[in-house]
């Protein structure tokens, strides 16, 4: 028990802070939908900036992607370049426009934006379809993160897997239900700061262990370990493309990076910024926060080769999710481990809380209220109940996770990018975009994602490295443009369009 004291203490302080933030905002969040769903669009830019970064980066980044570099070498850092570029695109192209249009339209969720912006006979169907997509695709994502955190608790603190999963989901659900968007954003900001610090600490570990920068790079320049294919790695860790193909880097870089321009959990961040100064701060600093953390994390696995002997490397190359845990165990410093574990939990919980709120608002604000409208306070109460019920569902899935949850998680990112982006971008920039274009591009994008994934990618030789996001995104965007042109008669009134584009 005493050996777990530093980690337990760090985790308890962190959890108490999260619950405290939720408790502090509990009254304000219960006042109505504008408070619970978008924090009355009054949150400082620096908070939203850190929240965007911590929501996008999760345990998948800090454990999965960091470990992937063990097999792929330092070339894996190019994935981080694409992610940083999409972060910039998201804030430059979508941030200010989405904030202004949604405030003007009174939109508080992404599905209701489609409804209010397009105003066509298919608007309600588009809203319901996008809400259902959120409810379905998010389930796998949340289960994947809860599973990762529960395994971490089991490994580090010997907490049984089921109890760990219940604890992580229970605590996150509690502060989300208490403070709505207020507590999600403020806890995300705290978690973002912790994640930045932990990224810097983690990248220092292999260098300190090896005795300096020069010493580590001399080791990495020629290692005796073998690759996943059984070939000697030699100088592959520091040679571009030696251990991983450019198309694979492009596929993961696009499919995950594009979440920032399409996933509701990221986009809804824009709704809550208080003013122009806050927006400008976030536009500049969010790519910096993400870029710094990715510089530290995306090549980390490759650096860990300097800490592993041949036998350990042979195991880790086939189990890259265990690379970060191995690094902490090998470094064997209780305080460093405690700080890193708390940071890894922060990475998981920040993403979990954000998606919990999104599923609650989609289930009640965009589905139940569409069928039977409720008052403000009743909607908030129902949303809280939906978040709690969905968390129980995720827990059940986490206890018996189907094979390939991690794969399904990355697949859900492609569904959002292909399904949502054309309708969002077109809604913000193209006056001639129509509700029919939005609805059909959403359906076609999702169908193309499924088709490529399950009918082409792993069935047709040579297609394995071409991620479904690439063909599905092109098809969906093309469908939006073509169908919008063909259904010009379904455009909203000129007066409505003038008002939307004046916001």
């Amino acid at each position, binding site marked *: 028990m005493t050996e777990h004291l530093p980690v337990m203490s760090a985790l308890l302080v962190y959890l108490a802070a999260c619950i405290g933030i939720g408790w502090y905002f509990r009254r304000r969040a219960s006042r109505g939908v504008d408070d619970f769903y978008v924090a009355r669009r009054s949150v400082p830019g620096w908070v939203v900036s850190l929240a965007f970064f911590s929501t996008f980066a999760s345990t998948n980044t800090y454990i999965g992607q960091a470990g992937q570099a063990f097999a792929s070498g330092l070339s894996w*850092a190019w994935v*981080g370049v694409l992610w*940083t570029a999409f972060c910039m695109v998201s804030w430059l192209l979508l941030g200010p426009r989405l904030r*202004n249009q949604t405030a003007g339209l009174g939109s508080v969720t992404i599905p209701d934006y489609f409804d209010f912006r397009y105003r066509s006979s298919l608007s309600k169907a588009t809203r319901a379809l996008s809400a259902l997509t959120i409810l379905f695709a998010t389930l796998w994502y949340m289960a994947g993160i809860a599973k990762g955190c529960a395994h971490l608790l089991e490994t580090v603190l010997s907490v049984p897997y089921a109890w760990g999963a219940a604890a992580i989901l229970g605590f996150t659900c509690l502060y989300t239900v208490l403070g709505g968007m207020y507590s999600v954003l403020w806890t995300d900001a705290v978690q973002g700061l912790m994640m930045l610090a932990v990224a810097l600490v983690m990248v220092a570990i292999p260098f300190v262990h090896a005795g300096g920068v020069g010493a580590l*790079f001399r080791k990495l320049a020629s290692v005796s370990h073998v690759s996943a294919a059984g070939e000697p790695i030699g100088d592959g860790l520091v040679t571009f493309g030696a251990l991983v193909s450019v198309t694979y880097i492009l596929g993961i870089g696009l499919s995950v990076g594009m979440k920032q321009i399409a996933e509701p959990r990221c986009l809804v961040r824009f709704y809550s910024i208080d003013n122009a100064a806050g927006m400008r701060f976030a536009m500049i600093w969010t790519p910096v926060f993400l870029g710094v953390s990715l510089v530290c994390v995306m090549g980390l696995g490759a650096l860990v080769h300097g800490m592993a002997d041949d036998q350990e490397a042979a195991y880790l190359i086939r189990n890259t999710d265990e690379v970060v845990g191995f690094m902490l165990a090998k470094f064997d410093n209780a305080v460093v481990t405690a700080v890193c574990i708390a940071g890894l939990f922060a990475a998981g919980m920040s993403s979990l809380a954000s998606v919990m709120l999104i599923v609650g608002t989609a289930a009640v604000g965009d589905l139940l209220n569409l069928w039977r409208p409720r008052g403000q306070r009743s909607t908030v109460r129902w949303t809280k109940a939906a978040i709690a019920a969905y968390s129980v569902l995720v827990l059940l899935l986490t206890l018996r996770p189907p094979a390939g949850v991690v794969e399904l998680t990355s697949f859900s990112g492609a569904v959002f990018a292909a399904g949502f982006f054309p309708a969002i971008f077109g809604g913000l920039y193209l006056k001639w975009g129509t509700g029919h274009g939005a609805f059909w591009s959403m359906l076609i994008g999702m169908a193309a994602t499924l088709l490529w994934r399950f009918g082409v990618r792993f069935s047709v030789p040579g297609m394995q490295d071409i991620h479904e996001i690439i063909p599905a995104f092109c098809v969906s965007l093309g469908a939006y443009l073509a169908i919008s042109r063909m259904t010009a008669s379904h455009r909203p009134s000129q007066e409505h369009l003038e008002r939307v584009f004046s916001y």
Partner: protein
Amino acid sequence: MDLLTAGAYVAIAVLVAVNAWVVTRLEVDVRPGDETRRDS
């Protein structure tokens, strides 16, 4: 480390620097927070 591999780290630094430069030259307009209204 070869040039292309090192280039990833340089590219991230260049991207965030260019982004900051662009944003400082952009006119950013955001309506104040509490003035939300429902048109629909």
